[in-house]
């Protein structure tokens, strides 16, 4: 029934000799599961997400996503793999400043395959921004910018959504709008890995992993319907 989609084996990331933001982690996550990752600042949450998102390369160990060992891919292969499989949502909601909301979404289409403006418009409508299509990021509120990012992350229909403190810079109201969207996506079957500092948000998922100093300190299943399998070493 449940099938694993992400598997990390003895994963280690080392920046300098001493800093070991990811220290020998072995874990897998199931398809369709929402995994929340929490932990103190500097514990390696962002680093872990970057590794899974093919944005950074591991020092040791391997990462398997959907059966592909991405730690063996080169830069360009990683880029291609990422755009097929992974949607990214950032805390700082990075958008290209000189492109409008709809163009920012279309840019992701363009780098993925081909541009279909009506789809980009639909994606923005879905996140409630049908009335802000032609605005540049500077003319959008933080919550609106974050929703553009979500639309952009969704436009190529990735199976996995990685979100790094997606509500970290938002006020309560906007945060709730974004969380509601993420919940919807989860219902639709997307696999979600979400980093947060907020315990309330952490509890929204199916499973909660705590990181301390690059190691998993606790791992608990909240929603037994879709749980992950843990193999701590």
């Amino acid at each position, binding site marked *: 029934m449940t099938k694993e989609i992400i598997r990390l084996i003895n994963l280690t990331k080392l920046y300098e000799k001493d800093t070991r933001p990811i220290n020998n982690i072995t874990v897998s996550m199931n398809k369709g599961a929402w995994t929340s990752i929490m932990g103190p600042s500097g514990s390696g949450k*962002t680093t872990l*997400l*970057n590794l899974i*998102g093919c*944005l*950074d390369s591991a020092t040791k160990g391997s990462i398997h996503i959907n059966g592909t060992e991405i730690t063996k891919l080169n*830069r*360009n292969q990683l*880029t*291609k793999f*990422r*755009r097929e499989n992974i949607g*990214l949502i*950032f*805390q*700082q909601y*990075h*958008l*290209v*400043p*000189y*492109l409008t909301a709809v*163009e920012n979404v*279309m*840019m*992701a*289409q*363009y*780098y*993925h395959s081909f*541009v279909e403006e009506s789809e980009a418009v639909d994606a923005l409508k879905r996140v409630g921004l049908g009335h802000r299509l032609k605005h540049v990021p500077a003319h959008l509120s933080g919550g609106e910018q974050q929703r553009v990012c979500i639309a*952009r992350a969704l436009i*190529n229909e990735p199976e996995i959504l990685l979100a*790094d403190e997606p509500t970290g810079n938002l006020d309560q109201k906007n945060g709730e709008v974004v969380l509601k969207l993420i919940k919807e996506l989860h219902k639709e079957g997307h696999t979600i890995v979400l980093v947060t500092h907020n315990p309330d948000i952490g509890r929204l998922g199916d499973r909660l992993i705590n990181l301390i100093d690059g190691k998993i300190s606790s791992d608990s299943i909240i929603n037994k319907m879709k749980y992950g399998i843990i193999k701590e070493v």
Partner: protein
Amino acid sequence: MFLRILWKSLSKRKSRIAIAVISVIMGAAIATALLSVSLDVGEKVGYEFRKYGANLMVVPESDTIEVGFPGVDFGSVTEQRYINESDLWKIKTIFWRNNVLGFAPILYQVVSIGEGEDEQNVVLAGTYFSKDIEIIEPYSSNDPLIFNTGIQEISPWWKVSGNWIEDQNDTTSSMVGINVAEKLNLEIGDTLTIRYYANYEELTNETVYNLKVKGIVETDGNEDNQIFVNLQVAQDLTGRNDKVHMIQVSALCNACPVDTFAEEIEGKITYAEARTVKQLVSAEMNILGKIEDMMFLVTIVALLASALGVMTTMTTSVIERQKEIGLMKSVGAEDKKIVSLFLSEASIIGVIGGIFGYIIGIILSQFIGLSVFNTSITPRFEIIPIALGISVGITLLASALPVRRATKIEPAIVLRGE
């Protein structure tokens, strides 16, 4: 979409792009200006240098006329040898005929001017002013059959008040050197009387000839002491039909082999000797060569400077846009997409810079031409592709390093905080 990204990224960073464009414009303008100038001046400097006289003298073999000093004393010219006027056309049939800009034969005769006590000797020079010469056997069937030439053609520096003798059959007009004119108080339109003695020692067998003064010549050289008439007049006066003493030949020489010219002319007119005005020619080539070297250097320096300008702007732009580049990569842009975006920007900068650089360069070339060489420069459209090529090439080259840097940007920085 690519064009949209390209266009917006350019138009939103106008001031930065402007700096890059301006540095390309400067390089392209200087390259265009110096290229036009050296193409044009290459020829025009040749003309400039001809001011100092013809660069070839053709004289009868073993004659002793001194090069550069045609007004020699003909006191004992009984054994004087001549070149046949009817052989002149052959000069225009050498291999390098197109570089023969013109020539003028000269037949000298000492005559007397003034009355009684004031009577004195002066050199009468018969020559062509502007004469149509028939090329009897052209070198190639494409060559024109008529060549118009004369002293006017090869001595553009003569300062003439009044007029040149335009009519090649005019046997009653003369052009008078300024010293002669002053001595006799001659003005344009006056009549000048010359006496020719067939027997000069005894001053007998006198022929008196009246010539109208058509122009007064000032050259600061020997010409100032001479009287010029159509060759025909001098030949008739002295009964030396078809004879000339020497031929002044003006060859356009910016690096042409004057020695070869001379040999070839000697091959055509076998009894003649062609002498090059060596110092002049080599000085001419030397200075031209140096000017060209200098222009080349200046161009290189200018292009290096604009490459540096482009490189700086591009590097700054890559650094400023790190996030954006990382973001593009994180949503799936491969290196080649990033490279093509930046190189397209560079090409556009190069094209705009090249076009404006060309226009400004042409204007600049006029200034250089007028102030340095005293001549206007013909704008050459064939330089447009060269200017564009150079500026696009320079921008692309200068962008290579910054773009490499852009490909090295890790998308991971995007997820990280500021």
